[in-house]
């Protein structure tokens, strides 16, 4: 070893060590789902409008450049909310058993993160920021304007039911897609990514 390389060995060892620690931390964070929780909690609005029931027809998330049609879905055979079928993966599904967007309670809209051949409408949903705007156009030609409160990730069998489905204290929206590890074509993804948003405004379309 030359004098020159010996002088470099120390800094290189330190840099390698730091990079290794960072990589292990990032890997553990990814595996345990800690990261989405870093971007949490825009407080809910103090004042909000309340709208009469009307089914949603379109969904827009300007900050993600998402503009998609919405149709009504029910329950799947396993009791979960039905996701749009593969041939309609470019549309979002509104759970018609719950409130419509703008009524008191959480309106649920589900969309695919990907199709068999590539990304789908909610591919970038996990990257939405707290405070971002989500606009839902309804069939009565009103637009319900929601503000994102938090983005969170849960194991598919461990969704906090009361927070996702049971909060009737204000008009709210839950956008749900998939995330986490891919477990194979029979089982899908391990987790759900859920965007919690609250109604802040409404206007005529």
């Amino acid at each position: 070893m030359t004098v020159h390389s010996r002088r470099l060995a120390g800094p290189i060892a330190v840099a390698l060590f730091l990079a290794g620690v960072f990589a292990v931390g990032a890997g553990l964070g990814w595996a345990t789902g800690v990261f989405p929780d870093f971007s949490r909690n825009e407080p809910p609005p103090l004042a909000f409008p309340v709208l009469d029931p009307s089914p949603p027809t379109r969904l827009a998330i300007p900050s993600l450049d998402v503009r998609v049609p919405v149709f009504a879905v029910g329950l799947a055979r396993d009791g979960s909310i039905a996701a749009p079928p593969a041939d309609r993966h470019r549309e979002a599904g509104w759970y018609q058993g719950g409130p419509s967007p703008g009524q008191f309670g959480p309106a649920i809209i589900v969309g695919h993160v990907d199709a068999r051949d590539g990304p789908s409408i909610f591919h970038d949903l996990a990257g939405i920021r707290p405070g971002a705007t989500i606009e839902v156009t309804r069939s009565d030609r009103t637009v319900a304007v929601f503000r994102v409160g938090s983005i969170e990730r849960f194991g598919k069998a461990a969704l906090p039911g009361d927070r996702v489905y049971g909060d009737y204290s204000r008009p709210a929206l839950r956008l749900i897609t998939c995330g986490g590890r891919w477990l194979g074509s029979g089982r899908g993804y391990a987790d759900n990514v859920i965007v919690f948003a609250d109604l802040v405004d409404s206007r005529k379309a």
Partner: protein
Amino acid sequence: MPASLVALLLVALTATAAADVFVEANPSTAESGSSVSIRASCPDNTAAATVVSPAFGAVTVQPQFGFLTATATVPANRLAGDYEVRLTCPGGTSATSTLHVVNRNRPSRGPATGLGGTAGPDPSRLLIVGGLVAICLAAMLGVMATRRRRA
């Protein structure tokens, strides 16, 4: 002339009285099996009144903070739909509003919202293993450097 003026005044008075008579459920959309707060107002808010709805039956609203209030529970077996809520004041005046009932539903499993087209290999294992390898390399390099220096 004075007679029509009195009539006009009466109409105006009843109009304001009618505007003051209302009933509302909060939240106006509720799950079956949950409770709602009823807030109502009659021409005279010092006497109790009755609120009736097919969603929760009949409740008596009592004077509280200048309004008439009560809590009503929608039975767990009530079907989803829109239900009229009718307030009847002691004097006979009445008001209505609507309570939207939805079925209570807590799917135990999250929706299947991915078909796998962008699912690459899980990066977490690569990151952890790669990171540990980097730490080991760093340790070896550090040991080598200090040994050479001593020698």
